[in-house]
């Protein structure tokens, strides 16, 4: 009884928090209200897409099940596809569950722990709430529809077995996702440990995603005409024999074994596989409960502390800036680089594209990409654009990402222009550091290409940065969002509108520079012309940026009160 009461209270709490976050405070001006309404566009779009996918997967699942049931589709081939899809989905769900605590603000348990709510109820609520994960709902719907399809196709035994397997697989996925989520949340209880984990997780995830590109080389080599003269035929049984033993206990394998046993009228084998799935789910539930308890017991805080007591002097003054603007720039630079997003901006684009280029070289069919990979300045150019994209979390939310630090700047004797130029300089320093890494990677991966094009590429990057600068100030002042740059997802994102417009504008601002390089290659037939044209373009960009940033600084004056309220988290 008390468990049900607690569950109901927590459900109500979550609902109210969600509702209040949507309605927000009414003590804000019209522009801020509009800004908050527009921020709902992205979640609504995601929800709409999820509903569409949910329906599409259900239809495909039903039709596939029915096709197997009536014999239109070979059962072995169909179930093999289901196995692969289910395995991929399972890893995706676990990876997403691990990513979620790194994305949003972790649940604040302190208040709940002070109330007479049993910890097992809190655990149950957390596990139950993971059922609302759209991916889980989509997979669940697909599996359910597949089983119904089998029933509709006249295969009653297989259909019923499929329904039971769907429940068991769903339970497994819910528990596995919860366990992964709690493990990461426990890691996140220490700020440093959590940030390090996020950094490694995101970088590893990104770099691992290139493995298929490397693997494609071996596939294409095996498929060379010299070996057999014809395409090798894929045989599922041969594939199965090569799989390690432990994979037989994966839910994707067990789920398909249940249906396969149902189709071949082996109820004992089906029941065994379902029982195994349920046992695995129960074990995961128990394990997740232990990890959850450990997470609640661990104190939020940090253990490793620097003990140096030497006090360093202030940072050097930057050229062309006042001491105040310099201080703002250094604070921006240091603050961002001590967050996960800031570090990813600097560390990820160059190495990521470097690996991609190496992968392209391994694919014989991708000749244009392999040729492009030989031109290091192209890699540099693309990675500079990626750096500018990946920094949007900072550049399109220059004020909101400072959080309470913004109040300190608003209280400081700084003019709006000093604040604006300080922010731009800090943004530039982060881009500059990222660009140096991109340059180093490009030089080490492909040193070829005319030196003039390398110089022109660097100048083009600088010109694009200057053109983005006024937009960064405008959007950051008009649509501030209090964000935590150590969150890799929604919690660290700027307002969606600046993200979208910033992305479009970055692409648009790169176009003139790219056109000038093409003009020097195909019209002037001179590599040196690229440098001259790019110097001129950079001068034009600076000429546009300076008055525009000064003009944008007026927006800070107009929105000062709103910025102060956002800094206070209101």
């Amino acid at each position: 009884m008390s468990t049900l009461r607690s569950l109901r209270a927590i459900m109500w709490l979550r609902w109210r928090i969600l509702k209040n976050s949507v309605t927000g405070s009414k003590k804000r001006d019209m522009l801020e209200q509009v800004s908050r309404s527009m921020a709902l566009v992205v979640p609504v779009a995601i929800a709409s897409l999820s509903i569409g996918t949910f329906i599409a997967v259900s239809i495909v699942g039903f039709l596939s099940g029915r096709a197997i049931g009536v014999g239109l589709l070979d059962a072995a081939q169909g179930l093999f596809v289901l196995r692969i899809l289910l395995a991929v989905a399972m890893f995706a769900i676990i990876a997403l569950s691990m990513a979620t605590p790194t994305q949003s603000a972790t649940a604040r348990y302190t208040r709940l722990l002070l109330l007479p709510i049993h910890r097992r109820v809190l655990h149950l609520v957390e596990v139950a709430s993971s059922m609302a994960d759209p991916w889980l709902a989509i997979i669940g719907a697909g599996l359910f529809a597949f089983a119904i399809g089998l029933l509709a196709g006249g295969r009653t035994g297989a259909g019923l077995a499929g329904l039971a397997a769907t429940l068991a697989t769903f339970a497994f996925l819910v528990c596995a996702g919860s366990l992964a989520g709690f493990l990461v949340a426990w890691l996140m209880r220490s700020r440093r440990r959590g940030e390090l984990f996020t950094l490694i997780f995101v970088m590893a995830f990104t770099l691992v995603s290139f493995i298929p590109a490397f693997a494609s080389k071996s596939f294409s080599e095996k498929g060379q005409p010299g070996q057999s003269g014809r395409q090798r035929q894929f045989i599922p049984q041969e594939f199965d024999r090569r799989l390690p033993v432990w994979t037989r206990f994966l839910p994707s394998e067990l789920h398909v074994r249940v249906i396969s046993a149902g189709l071949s009228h082996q109820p004992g084998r089906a029941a065994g596989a379902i029982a195994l799935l349920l046992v695995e789910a129960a074990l995961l539930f128990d394990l997740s409960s232990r990890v959850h308890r450990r997470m609640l017991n661990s104190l939020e805080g940090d253990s490793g502390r620097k003990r140096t007591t030497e006090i360093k002097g202030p940072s050097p003054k930057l050229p062309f800036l006042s001491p105040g603007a310099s201080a703002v720039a250094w604070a921006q630079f240091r603050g961002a680089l001590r967050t996960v997003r800031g570090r990813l901006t600097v560390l990820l684009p160059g190495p990521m594209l470097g690996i991609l280029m190496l992968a392209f070289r391994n694919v014989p069919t991708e000749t244009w990409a392999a040729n492009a990979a030989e031109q290091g300045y192209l890699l540099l150019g693309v990675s500079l654009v990626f750096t500018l994209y990946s920094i949007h979390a900072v550049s399109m939310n220059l004020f909101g990402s400072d959080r309470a630090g913004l109040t300190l700047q608003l209280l400081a004797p700084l003019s709006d222009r000093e604040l604006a130029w300080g922010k731009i300089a800090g943004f530039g320093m982060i881009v500059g550091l990222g660009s140096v890494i991109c340059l180093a990677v490009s030089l080490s991966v492909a040193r070829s290409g005319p030196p003039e094009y390398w110089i022109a590429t660097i100048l083009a990057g600088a010109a694009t940065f200057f053109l983005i600068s006024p937009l960064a100030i405008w959007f950051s002042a008009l649509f501030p969002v209090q964000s935590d740059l150590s969150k890799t997802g929604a919690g660290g994102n700027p307002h969606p509108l600046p993200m979208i417009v910033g992305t479009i504008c970055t692409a648009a601002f790169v176009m003139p520079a790219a056109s000038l390089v093409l003009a020097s290659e195909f019209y002037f037939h001179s590599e040196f012309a690229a440098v001259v044209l790019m110097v001129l373009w950079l001068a034009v960009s600076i000429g546009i940026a300076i008055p525009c940033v000064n003009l944008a600084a007026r927006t800070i004056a107009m929105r000062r009160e709103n910025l102060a309220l956002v800094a206070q988290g209101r």
Partner: protein
Amino acid sequence: MSNAAIETHGLRKEFGEFVAVDGIDLLVPRGSFYGFLGPNGAGKSTTIKCLTGLLRPSAGTFTILDLDPVRQSVAVKRQVGVVPEDLALFDRLSGAETLAFVGQVHGLDAKAIRERSQELLTLMDLTKAANELVADYSHGMRKKIALSAALLPAPRLLFLDEPFEGIDAIASRQIKDLLAAFVKGGGTVFITTHVLEIVERLCDHIGIISKGRLVAQGSMIELRAGGVSGQSLEERFMDIVGVLPSAAPTLEWLA
């Protein structure tokens, strides 16, 4: 130069239909230790935010150290130190870097920043934590570093929003002595607190705000003179704010 460090006329702040500050006329003499009191939600923090430029008043005029904070905001900020409600600190700067930042924006030279930082960190017992990120500080440590940041540029006027909340007894004593010395040297302190003992011990002038209106203002002697003889500050405060303990629910079910 007038005798007022802060002077407001009809200062008003509205949020939509809600009036947080309703036309108050403050007069804070230079060199005074001014306690700004009021129940929760009375408008104390909103008033400080208006005076320090974080919020734009909906109506009214005011001067800070004879300067117009709207037209001369940078000049005003050069002479003012603030410890706001949210402490206003960069999470990802260390304590020492926070002080260096404040020193730099106030145009202090590197030597002065280093020396003042060292002294303030020693006073606040933060020397060992000087190079830790503020994100890893406890609430009390954050408060101390925020106070250090407000004091570093040697302001002429200090706005302190609940400065002693969460600070240990030793540091609290040191800060009280420091603030008393600051006022003795001609500085002005504008402080909000709920601890009336602190007000009684430190403040020579008091303003009381209730439901956005300034209901009493004057020196401590004037304020006491208006009440019943032998009344404590707490009783006088309750009198002025209009809280009648007898009218409050007795919560008999608690017994």
